Each structure stands twice: as C-alpha cells, then as structure tokens.
C-alpha cells in the first residue's frame, strides 16, 4: 500500500508532534501524544469522537498551543506553532466544518487569505489560472465565477479541498473530507491523494469510514482517550483490528440482528408525493418496519423527510398518515400525528447548544404542553434523568449541550422524542460523523424502536447501514425513486449501482415498494 518508489519511513518527517499534552478546564484531552507526518505517506488518524483528534489537528495547524511537548517542523523543534508559522511551513487543513463564504465566487474562495497580488490589488488573472488548475485536480468544472452558495454540500467540500491545494501544501490535513461526498467525488479524491503522495506531500487523513482508510492509507495512528494506542503501518491489520484499537475491545457485530416486522397495515402511505426537488414519490411503511432512503447526496432524500414532516411545502395525490388522509403540512401537526424527525445537522437543526441538556430533552414536551400551564421542575428532572440514564449520558444535565461530544449530542437529539412514543420516526443520516461506539448504540436503539412497533424511515449516506438495518430501501436519483430493493436483494453493490444509475432493472416510478 506504500507508494512504490520511496520508502517513506526512511525520509525525515516534515512535521512531528512529540509528547504533546493538552487539557481543557483541567480535563486532559491529549496525554503524551506523538505523531510524525512524512512526505509521500498517507497517514490515517483514527479515534472515536472525543478521543482528541480535533485537538491534535488544531495543535498541528497552529490553532491551539499544547500545554507541554514540542513540535518539530523540518527538524527545528519549537514549543508551539502560530497559524502563520503553520502556513509558512506549508500546512493546509480541510476542516470538517466548511469554511467557505457563500456570497463569494468559487475562484475568490479558493484564493481567500492567499490572493496573488499585483500593485496591492487582487490579481484576478493569475487567480483564475491557478484556481482553474486546482479545480481541475478535484474535478470541479463549474464556472469559477459561480457563488459557492449555489453549490451542493458535496461540491462545496471539493471547493474546500481545492482551496487547500491552492496553497501548494507540503502537509495536507483532511478532517473527514468524504462525509458529504458522492461515490464519484470520493473516487476523484482518492486518485488525487494518490498523486499528491507520489509528489511527496505528507497527508493526514481522518475518517470514520474504515473501508476508505484501508484502501487509501499507508500508516495509522489510533487515539483512544487522548493516548496513542497504535502507531503502525496499515499493512497486516484489518478493519476489525482497527476498531478494536479504537474501542479498546472486540467490536463484536456493529449491527443488531435483523428481525422481520409482523404483518400489519401501513401506518404511513403516500403516492404522487412531491416536495422540494422530489417528484412522484410513492412510499409505504408499516409498524415495526425500517424503510431506508438511499442515493447519492443531494438527490432529494432529505426533501422527502422534510416534506413528510411538514417542514417544507409538499403535495401528494393520496395520503394515509396514522389515520389522517392529508399530509401534515406543519411540524406541529406532524407531531400530533405521531411523526418525529431527527435532523442530520445536529448543531444547527437538532439542538440548542447554549441551553442545558435537560432543556433540550424537554423541548418537545414544552411544545405540547399548554403554554401557560405551570412547569413542574421536579417532574422534569425525573423525566430527563430517566432519559439520560437510558442513553448513558453521565454528569450534570444542566451543562450546556455544547459541552457534549458529537455522538452524545446526536443521542440527545434522538432521545428527546422518545417520551412521546412517535409512531413514525424520520431519521436523517443519524450517524453522520459519529464514532463507532455511538453508532452501535444508535443502531441498538433503532432496533428497539422498530421492535416496539414504531415505523422508521432511515435516510443514510452510509451504505452498510442501509444494508444491515433496513427491511426495504428506496433509492432516489434526481428527485425520483429509481429503485426499490427488498431485504433479500439488499447489498452494498445493489444500492450503489442503483444510486449511480447503473441498476440492471430500473424500477417503475409508480407503485408502492
């Protein structure tokens, strides 16, 4: 898996962090961590959420100072890096949270902070030339003058990568770059990283997708609870082994055993449904069933959920939702009809970060209670304590939700609906950017809900999830359902083929699955 002409280990590292310790509020996050990035090597950084990956990246890119330890850049040791040191050393970071300015054009975004100048002015000609070049590398063929706001999430991610390349990095750090990329875009990125490796760039690659890491990387550092538990070549270890290193014990089976739902009349069925970019959607789901929604990112899957939830305008020719014969139209009515929705972007759509965990858990209840009734604090405390125990959230529930790790935040976003016993649960990519252990817990919870007779519609960008959890999967492309795959035919290959439009037998757009 190493590139063939150089032996990377023999080459001195471009940057190395040695014995780094860093804490927040007296809470150690990194303890004696060392990592060395060598030219011509793709180095994977693995660890669960909260293991300290983001902190380590921030220290490497000059965003944070370590409490102790040193950073060696090109053989010269120092106590810490400033952001400008990092830039001078040729470090470019592709952050997990996009850092683009939506109102500026693709070209301007790529050059931002590193504009070529002429007489103090931005040299738009040079900018256009070089931006076109890096766009070519990542397969962006949109006009450079297009505002970034007009692009889909996946395309923006590619702009972000182009922006990093624009700085001619010698060290490239990518924090979950593929979380919103389509399979094709992921392929382009993989090829690109291979070429950069051949050119001698040192690459640090962070991802939760183990198969990507197995296919792409040469070397791996695993962080667990702020300590390096492995620093070794990837050759000779398999995915299960990696998980064992991250979790610290045997991964067992990630997915719970599938059980067939008992036959029952559907709790939700729509035909001729249209919302956002989707057209002519027909869906049914029965109690105890998990219906998957798959497809490439941005082909209308989210619009289906939001339309069913009444968050965006939707129409349908025939509807049955938990006894009602019309679409909810509004979120409040959707809730009354027993529909609950867990958004993908938990920070923006799922949680009130500045409010306490307890308040977050109680909000759907507050929405239902009579507005001017008296709150019963003791009862609220009891209810939230029960929920927190069920989720395994420890500590003070009066802490703000932003103090929780990403995985725990996602659990809160899901758990706030549980006391209301929703009949239909709409899940929008519930495990995006979530660590393995939380994934397992979410899967288990999902299985429990289905076994308790709730209907689940699961939108997922993680194909193994669709294969292992769903009773049926509907694949969307360009706003229409192009394939419906039953449990017995479910496989990653079938889903990907259908999503890419390579399905052997295109399914009709009409009848229910």
């Amino acid at each position, binding site marked *: 898996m190493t590139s063939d002409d150089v032996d990377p280990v023999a080459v001195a590292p471009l940057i190395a962090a040695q014995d780094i310790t860093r804490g927040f509020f*007296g*809470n150690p996050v990194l303890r004696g961590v060392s990592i060395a990035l060598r030219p011509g090597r793709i180095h994977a950084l693995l660890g669960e959420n909260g293991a300290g990956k983001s902190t380590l990246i921030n220290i490497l890119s000059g965003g944070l100072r370590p409490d102790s330890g040193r950073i060696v850049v090109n053989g010269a040791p120092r106590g810490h890096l400033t952001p400008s040191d990092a830039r001078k050393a040729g470090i470019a970071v592709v952050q997990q949270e996009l850092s683009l300015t939506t109102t500026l054009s693709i070209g301007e975004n790529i050059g931002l902070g590193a504009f070529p100048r002429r007489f103090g002015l931005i040299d738009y000609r040079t900018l256009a030339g070089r931006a076109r070049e890096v766009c070519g590398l990542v397969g962006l063929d949109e006009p450079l003058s297009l505002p970034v706001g007009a692009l889909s999430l996946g395309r923006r991610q590619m702009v972000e990568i182009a922006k990093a390349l624009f700085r001619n990095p010698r060290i490239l750090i990518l924090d979950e770059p593929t979380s919103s990329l389509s399979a094709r875009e992921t392929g382009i990125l993989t090829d690109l990283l291979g070429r950069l490796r051949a050119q001698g760039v040192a690459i640090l690659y962070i991802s939760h997708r183990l198969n990507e890491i197995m296919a792409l990387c040469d070397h791996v550092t695993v962080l667990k609870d702020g300590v390096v538990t492995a620093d070794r070549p990837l050759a000779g270890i398999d995915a299960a082994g990696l998980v064992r290193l991250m979790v610290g014990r045997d991964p067992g089976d990630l997915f719970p055993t599938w059980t067939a739902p008992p036959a029952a009349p559907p709790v939700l069925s729509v035909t001729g449904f249209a919302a956002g970019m989707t057209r002519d959607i027909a869906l049914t789901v029965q109690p105890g069933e998990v219906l998957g929604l798959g497809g490439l990112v941005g082909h209308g899957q989210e619009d289906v959920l939001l339309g069913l939830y009444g968050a965006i305008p939707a129409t349908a020719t025939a509807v049955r939702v938990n006894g009602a014969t019309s679409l909810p139209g509004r979120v409040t009515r959707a809730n009354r009809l027993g529909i609950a929705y867990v958004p993908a972007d938990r920070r923006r759509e799922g*949680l009130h970060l500045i409010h306490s965990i307890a308040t977050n858990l*109680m909000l759907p209840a507050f*929405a*239902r209670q009579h507005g001017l009734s*008296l709150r019963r604090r003791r009862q609220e405390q009891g209810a939230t304590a029960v929920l927190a125990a069920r989720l395994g959230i420890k500590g003070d529930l009066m802490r703000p939700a932003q103090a929780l790790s990403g995985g725990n935040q996602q659990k809160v976003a899901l758990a706030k609906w549980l006391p209301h016993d929703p009949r239909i649960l709409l899940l929008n990519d519930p495990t995006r950017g979530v660590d393995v252990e939380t994934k397992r817990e979410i899967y288990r919870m999902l299985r429990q809900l289905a076994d308790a007779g709730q209907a689940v519609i699961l939108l997922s960008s993680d194909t193994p999830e669709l294969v292992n959890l769903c009773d049926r999967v509907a694949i969307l492309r360009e706003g229409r359902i192009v394939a419906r795959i039953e449990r017995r035919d479910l496989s990653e290959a079938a889903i990907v083929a259908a999503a890419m439009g390579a399905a052997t037998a295109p399914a009709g757009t009409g009848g229910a699955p």
Partner: protein
Amino acid sequence: MNAMNAGKTSAAVPGRLRTVLQNRALQMLVIVILVWIVAGLSSRGFASFGHLRYLLELAAVIGLVAAGQTLVVIAGGIDLSVGAIVTVSAISLPLLSGAGDATGLVGLLATLAVATAIGLVNGVGVSALRVHPMIMTLAMATFLQGALILVAGGTAVSAHNPVVEWLGSGRLGGIPAGILLWLVVSGATLALLHATPLGARIFALGANPLATLLSGVSVPGTTMLIYAVSGFTAGLAGIVVLGMNGQGYVGIGDPYLLASIAAVVLGGTSVLGGRGSYAGTIPGAILLVTVTALITVVNASPGWRNILFGGLILGLLLLSGRERARR
C-alpha cells in the same frame, strides 16, 4: 469542542457560588443600591423616601416597556416600535374615551387592544412575511409616526379618564399605582418566562429558531404572541405616561425606545437571543432613571447629559456585559 467535560462534582460548590455572584440581576441590584447610597450621602434630597418613590415611578414606565422588549429580545428579535406604540397609546386613549364611558375602562381596554394589535402586526410581519424584526418594527415606527401626525396633528390631547388618572397619580397604601402595576406585570413576566412551557419555548426560539421549529414548537404562533405582548406592555406604559403627564402628544414615547433596550441589555439579556431574564431588566430600568436623575441634578447641558448617559451604558457594558462570541 468535544473536550469540555469540565465541571466535575468537586468543582460544583464553588461553581454554584460563582453562578450566584455572576447573576446579572443581583449585580445590577447591588450597583443600584451602591449608587443610591453614594448619591444619598452626597446630595441631601436624593435619598428621601419621596424622591426614591418618584424614581421608581419613572422606572415603572421604562420597566413596563422593557417587559415586552425583554421577551422579544430573548426570542432573538428586537422591537424598535415600542416608542411609537407608547405614543399611540397616550394619544389614542383620549380619543377612544367617549362621554358614555364613565369609569374609563372601555377607553382603556380599547387603547390596549389597539396597542396589542399593532404588536400583532409586527409579529405577523416577522413570522409570516419573514421581514427582519429590525426592519419590520422600524418600518412600523415610521408608519405610526406619520399616522399619528395625520390623526392628532401637532397638538397635545388631554384625557379625562378616571382609571388613567388613578394609574398616573393614584396610590394604594402609599404606593403609587404605576409602581403597583409594574409589580404585577413584573410578576407575570417572570412567571411567564421561567415557570411556563411558553417561556421555555421563547428561550428556545431565541437560541435556535430552526431547531425549535423542528422540535414541534409553533414558531409563528410564539413569535406573533411575543410581539403582541410587547405591543401590550408598551400600550400599558403609554397609559401610565398619559396619566402622569395629563396629556399626550406626538413624540411622548420616543425616549422609551432606547431606554427599554438599554434596560434589557444592562440587565444581562443577550441581544443574540436565548439567554437572559426580566429579573435583570428591573434593576436595569431603575439604574437608568437613577443615572438620568443624577445627571439632571448635576445640571449638565444637554450635550453633557447625552455623553454621560452614553458613557455610562458603554462603561457598564465594558465592565460586565461581555457577550461570549457565538457562531
């Protein structure tokens, strides 16, 4: 971000003490008392019961306007039309109090209905038309300003309304009616914010409107309601002002716009929404009138008066009003 599991049990006790000390309402109250003591020692008439009672009467008007403003600001909005609504209320009450209205209650209720309706229109504009609150309420203020001159002209109108006169100058057990009204409204506002699900919804709305919508809260309903309440409390304030002044004229409510916002902000409510309490606004309003009174005592020119006032707000902000940067 994911590394902030600080605050274990060992740190809980001093943490709680710090929370109390950092309580903005308490801080403001301490500042008010200190200012009163210093002013009372240096100026003879200041600390007299009558003068302090008078200050509280003035603070009551600001406090009433600021009650609605606090709700709106916590919900992530702002109401720049409260000054105009105070004027509308002070001018329309005499016009709405007919001869057959012996107790004056009909006129009073009609006036409050008008004020509430104006607030409701603000709420509809913000929630249904999705106009930014600052623009919606600013435009409403502009509109009302013109409409008032069209209706009332440049003249002052006097009220002969028993209820209003009582609210302006009546007492109950030695306490001015305006202050009593403020106490009632304060109690109701605090209860609404902190003891009802509606209050929780208002906080949620200000912290993250999208997540609040997706959690099943009726965002348009809540928005309309709080702007209507803001119109209502501004209307109440207008009636008290009318009662205290005896007559209403165009521009009578203008000072209360900035005063209400200043009281809310001094009271520690975040202008970004989602955080705060009316408990801080109350001493905030008292501090504002106290300082204004002190500036008057010093007999400064209008220029210095403005500078002192602005300097004070800025100074208090610099001292304790740091708003943590939020994305």
